[in-house]
């Protein structure tokens, strides 16, 4: 299962890099195997119009588990604080500037104390050694790797690039990472797919397929409210009742790709309300957090660094050095 599935770039990057829409697109290009700029192009021709009108057997179609709704994750448990015997302490004060938690908020500035302590070796046990990689020459290993790399018939990882226009239309480009892609317009606001990692769809053939979603997404506004001047695309006419799409690029005879595209819309038909509600909840949580940070500007915290000379170098470290031995 993929842990992080939606890359809303403007929210995950660290400052101070200004995130223009163009920069987001460059990053999208790095994240996925194709350019998002191409995805913004208006469709040249409409090769196939396929509104989803017929109800499909939706049994078992859905998103397992919760959809991310902006509720903060439980923090990872902190390790037990170590007790040190301090041999020497150096403290200095310094001005620091840290990136804000949310882009657009003021940078976190302040003066902190940095304390460096030379301590005695606490004699921690070494972590267990890394597992030994079996030699690839062994046929059993090679067979196992080949089996693992083969996508199963009922599970696929899909890569999606989505440009959402006015929260009403999305130009979607997706594929299985093999280079073959399919693209088209959808009447779904794909922002609602953020927070969805894995979903399953039972197709018209009765097969239940599970998909894991890796998505890069950006918003565009044709009324000029976006930072970047975006040529207004020619939006296709799509069904207004229910999820619908039109394929504009790619091989529409490829069943897997079409199933994938269809499956996203089938999913939305079942889970759309929950996905939209989660998206709205994320927006509310985002705004609430932003308001809180504006009202309670964080201050940088003091830093304490403890270090020690090891009695014996760690086996893991020396192993890493040996692997990168000099030629």
């Amino acid at each position, binding site marked *: 299962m993929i842990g992080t599935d939606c890359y809303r770039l403007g929210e995950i990057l660290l400052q101070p890099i200004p995130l223009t829409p163009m920069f987001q697109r460059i990053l999208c290009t790095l994240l996925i195997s194709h350019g998002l700029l191409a995805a913004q192009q208006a469709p040249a021709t409409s090769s196939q119009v396929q509104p989803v009108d017929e109800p499909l057997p939706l049994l078992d179609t859905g998103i397992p588990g919760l959809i991310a709704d902006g509720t903060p994750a439980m923090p990872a448990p902190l390790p037990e604080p170590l007790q040190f015997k301090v041999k020497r302490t150096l403290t200095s004060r310094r001005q*620091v500037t840290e990136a804000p938690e949310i882009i657009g908020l003021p940078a976190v500035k302040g003066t902190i104390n940095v304390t460096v302590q030379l301590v005695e070796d606490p004699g921690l046990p070494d972590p267990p050694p890394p597992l030994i990689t079996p030699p690839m020459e062994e046929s059993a290993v090679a067979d196992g790797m080949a089996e693992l790399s083969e996508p199963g018939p009922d599970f696929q990882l899909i890569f999606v690039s989505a440009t959402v226009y006015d929260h009403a239309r999305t130009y979607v480009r997706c594929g299985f990472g093999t280079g073959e892609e399919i693209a088209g317009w959808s009447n779904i606001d794909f922002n609602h797919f953020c927070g969805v990692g894995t979903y399953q769809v039972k197709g018209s053939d009765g097969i239940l397929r599970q998909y894991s979603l890796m998505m890069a997404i950006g918003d565009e506004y044709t009324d000029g409210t976006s930072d970047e001047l975006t040529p207004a695309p020619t939006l296709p006419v799509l069904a207004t009742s229910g999820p619908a799409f039109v394929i504009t690029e790619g091989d529409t005879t490829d069943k897997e790709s079409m199933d994938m595209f269809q499956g996203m819309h089938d999913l939305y038909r079942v889970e759309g309300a929950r996905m939209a509600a989660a998206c709205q909840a994320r927006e509310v949580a985002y705004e609430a957090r932003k308001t809180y940070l504006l009202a309670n500007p964080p201050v940088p915290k003091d*830093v304490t660094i403890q*270090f020690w000379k090891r009695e014996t170098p760690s086996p893991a*470290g*020396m192993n*890493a*050095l040996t692997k990168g031995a000099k030629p």
Partner: protein
Amino acid sequence: MKSHPFLLSCMFVAVTGALTPVSLSEQQVSFTAGLSGTWNIEWMGVLNRVYFIQWSVDLLQWNYLPVIEADEGDKGFGAVSSSDKFFIRLHYADIDPEDPAYLGPENSDFDKDGMSNLFEVMNGFNPFVADLTADPDGDGLNNVHEQTAGTNPNAKDNPAVKLSVVVTGD
């Protein structure tokens, strides 16, 4: 997003002092996770090379840890930080053991400012920048005088000064 302590840490090798071009294949430093949020720093020492460890919390200001290592052997340090951003890098200088100015890794004075390498790193100074006239504690004694007096250049702990006044005349 709060990353795990040291998750953003990095390590790389810088070359200063008696500059000798160093190929990438010689950059033999490892940085591995230890237990309880600690990290281990290891490298294989090279003969006639003096090593310093630098730290930073912002990749802009670099300071020296109060340790010096030299020559061959497997070197290992452990570290832990309260910050989620902490950076370490190794800084070394190649030396000529036949050079009469070389008094060992700790007693030598690489920047020739009158303060030994060890005194500099023990007090948070840069052993590669002459800062003999600096007076970080503002007590009127510069760093060299503090070293000579055996006082802490970062604290106003000057020894008591005896003032003798001799009055002569009618």
